[in-house]
Every structure is written in structure tokens, then in C-alpha cells.
């Protein structure tokens, strides 16, 4: 769909930026593709460049992916030798372009996975998200039309070209006939990267629409040490959480509306068992997001820091019940008004805190009550 947003050609350069900045905690599906089958990505890049008449592609790879960057560079070199890219490219003979593919390594900033921050970083600037519009398809890298797609998306291009769109649509879940247009269809296969308290964590490929319980029991060998399921993050820590009663959640693009979380995200599922401390989980998520906030927008910069301080207080046993309401208020003020921040990081922090606190409030209240009892006793109050 993004490809169709490109404006008409004006004779100047257009770009493809492949987002391999896979920095979302619990997400490692793109790494597996790059580690073992980099040419499926390069094939997709070549097809995209041919279809959209693009002559320059950048693969923006996460800074910490040292080995993957080397693997990918060797694959790019092989592709040049086979004339997939370069001035003698067999594509170039057809559409008078000499497609080139470059690997650009990030420097470890989480926010550069946001597409416009990625572009800023690609241009050699500080990795800050840009205000949209203009969207990258109109003014992206170096102010030229740019397509930005994820590794998995681009890797899927080759199979779709080979088998056709009907084949792709035969997998996944259809949009219900009586559903409003805002409910998305979820076609195709998906790579689910499962981590956490399961017997066999790893990347598994299955159709969109698979149940969380099926993913855990069939692919991952069940919960680790026979313990009970408590919660799962459906796809990256900023997506909110699926509660204990949502074990059979259907993992498709409509998961957010159906189960009160933000969405499927990266499909990097983090599974937690009955012993998981949800206060610690929340504090850890917010610690990460506060650290990775780029600092441009006040709600995000200040909000994540305040939430981290509040959660640290609760985890240490110094929290009061007022802190729980304060957390919800902070989260709400960060994400209740969409558009108050440039990118989705503040929204993600909001959803993470709000859904975990709402779905596991007794865990938080128990921590707060215990502290109050201890502190009052310590103070000699009866």
C-alpha cells in the first residue's frame, strides 16, 4: 500500500529504505531472516526497486547487529556479482536504472526504528522523528520520495510475486462482513518471535489469526516448568498486555480492539507465567522507554521519566495507593490525546502502563498495601 503513495516520477532520485532496526525488546524475527536467508530480503528489495522505479535502496540495520551486518554485506556482494544490483544489473537493462543497495548501520537508538527518525539518522543527523505530513512517500530521505518497509514485509514480496495476491489472501483472517471499514483484514503468514516463560522460545511461522494458546502449546511446547499462564505482550513492549483471561486471544491485526491493547505490533510475543511480578515488568518497560525517549516532545520526555520514578517507588515498597491513580493520569495525559507527540513512543508507554495496571491492579494494590502496613507499623501507629 505504501508503494502506491509515491508521486509521479519527476526524473530525479527516489529511495527505498528497509527498516532492519529491530530494537523492540522481545523481537528477533528479522534477525533470523538476515542470519540465515538474506537473499530473500535482497530479492524483495530488487523487485520493489523495479516495480517503483527506484535506483537506490538502503538497508538500515540495527547497530547491535554486528554479525548480521556482515552477513548481509556478503549477501549484497553476492547479489552484485549476480547482477541483481549494479550498473550491469539485468533490471537496469529493462528500465534504464542502475539499482544500488547499501547497508547503513544504526548507532543503537531505539527511536530510529520509527520511520522518520530512521530517515534522519540515514541522512547523518540526530535520530529524531519528524512531524508528519509530509509523509516519507512524498518527502523522505534527502527530501525525496521514499518507501520505508520492514524486513519481513520486503521479504514477503518475492513469494507474493511468485504465487499471486489470491494465494496470499487465502491465508490469515478475513474482515467480518458486518465489520466497519476500520476493522482490518489480516492476510498472509507471519513470523511470531516468542520469548519468555515457554519451553521452546524462538521464531515460528504461521498464519495470522492463530490463537495465543495454540502458539504457546503447539509451537513452543507449553509453559515452562508446567506453570500457569499469566500474561503475554502480543508484539513489542509498547503494545500493552493480554491478561490471564485472554489466553485464547486471536493474534491478528485486530487484536488491539478485541482485547484492549494497542495492536499486534511486531508479533514478538513475550509470555509470562504465574510467578511474574507485574510491577517489575511495568517498571522495566518504562525504564527502557524513558531511556530511549528522544526528548523532543514534553509528554514523552517528562511523562516516561515520572512514570519510571513512580513505578520504582512502588516496586521498592514506598508507593501509596495514590501513586496508582497518578500513574493512570500520567499515562492518560501522554496518550489520551493522539497527536500530542511526534511519534508513537509516548502512546506505547501509555498503553503499556495503562493496560498492565488495569488488568493486574490487584498485583499493584498488594504491593502498595503491604508497604503502608509496614510503614505505619514502623512509625508506631496503631
Amino acid at each position: 500500500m505504501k508503494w502506491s503513495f509515491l508521486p509521479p516520477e519527476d526524473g530525479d532520485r527516489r529511495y527505498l529504505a528497509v527498516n532492519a532496526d529491530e530494537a523492540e525488546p522481545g523481537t528477533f524475527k528479522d534477525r533470523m531472516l538476515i542470519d540465515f536467508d538474506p537473499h530473500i530480503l535482497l530479492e524483495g528489495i530488487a523487485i520493489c526497486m523495479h516495480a517503483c522505479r527506484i535506483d537506490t535502496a538502503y538497508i538500515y540495520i540495527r547497530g547491535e547487529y554486528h554479525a548480521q551486518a556482515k552477513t548481509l554485506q556478503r549477501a549484497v556482494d553476492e547479489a552484485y556479482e549476480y547482477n541483481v544490483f549494479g550498473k550491469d544489473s539485468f533490471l537496469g537493462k529493462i528500465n534504464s536504472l542502475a539499482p544500488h543497495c547499501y547497508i547503513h548501520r544504526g548507532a543503537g537508538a531505539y527511536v530510529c526504528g520509527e520511520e522518520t527518525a530512521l530517515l534522519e539518522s540515514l541522512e547523518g543527523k540526530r535520530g529524531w522523528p519528524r512531524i508528519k505530513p509530509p509523509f516519507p512517500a512524498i518527502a523522505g530521505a534527502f527530501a525525496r520520495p521514499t518507501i520505508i518497509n520492514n524486513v519481513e514485509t520486503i521479504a514477503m514480496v518475492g513469494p507474493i510475486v511468485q504465487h499471486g495476491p489470491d494465494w496470499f489472501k487465502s491465508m490469515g483472517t478475513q474482515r467480518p462482513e458486518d465489520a466497519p471499514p476500520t476493522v482490518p483484514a489480516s492476510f498472509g503468514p507471519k513470523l511470531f518471535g516468542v520469548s519468555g516463560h515457554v519451553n521452546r522460545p524462538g521464531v515460528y511461522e504461521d498464519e495470522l489469526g492463530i490463537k495465543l494458546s495454540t502458539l504457546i502449546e503447539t509451537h513452543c511446547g507449553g509453559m515452562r516448568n508446567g506453570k500457569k499462564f499469566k500474561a503475554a505482550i502480543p508484539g513489542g513492549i509498547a503494545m500493552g498486555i493480554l491478561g490471564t483471561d485472554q489466553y485464547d486471544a486471536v493474534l491478528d491485526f485486530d487484536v488491539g480492539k478485541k482485547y484492549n491493547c494497542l495492536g499486534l505490533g511486531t508479533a514478538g510475543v513475550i509470555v509470562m507465567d504465574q510467578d511474574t511480578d507485574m510491577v517489575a515488568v511495568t517498571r522495566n518497560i518504562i525504564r527502557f522507554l524513558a531511556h530511549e525517549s528522544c526528548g523532543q516532545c514534553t509528554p514523552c520526555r517528562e511523562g516516561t521519566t515520572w512514570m519510571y520514578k513512580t513505578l520504582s517507588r512502588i516496586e521498592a515498597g514506598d508507593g501509596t495507593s495514590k501513586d496508582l491513580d497518578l500513574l493512570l493520569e500520567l499515562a492518560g495525559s501522554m496518550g489520551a490525546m493522539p497527536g500530542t507527540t511526534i511519534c508513537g513512543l509516548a502512546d506505547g508507554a501509555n498503553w503499556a502502563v495503562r493496560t498492565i495496571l488495569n488488568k493486574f491492579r490487584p498485583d499493584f494494590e498488594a504491593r502498595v498495601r503491604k508497604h503502608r502496613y509496614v510503614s505505619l507499623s514502623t512509625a508506631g501507629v496503631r
Partner: protein
Amino acid sequence: MPLKQPILTKRIPTPPWGDPADRKLVTLDHFLETGATTRYAKRSSSTPKPSSTSSKPASCVAEAAQGSPRA
């Protein structure tokens, strides 16, 4: 419906179709042998049309932050 055969992981042994211990880097030669050639050939035989004839008008101004659910 479970996936009948691997697609993205066709060359990457992944349960239930393969053992992760058997994974190894797929070289270009291996990639071409296992189905890519037809795609490259198919691609190189088609000439793309201009991607669009007119740019789409902007439908959203000050859109919600990325990832926000739409009402």
C-alpha cells in the same frame, strides 16, 4: 488454519517443518536452486508502468501519532 508449508522460513529449518539445529546460511547459489530463479526471471521479463499518474490528496492533517488506533 495452520500454515500448510513454510513460506518465509522455507530455507530456514523451523518447527514443525524442521530442526533449528540444521540451520545454515543460505548462499545465493542455494537461494537460486530453491525457487528464486523463477521469480528473478519473472521479474526481469516485465516492465513496470509509472507507479501512479497523480499524487493522492492528503487525507489527514495532524494525524494521530503512529500506531494509534483510529476511531
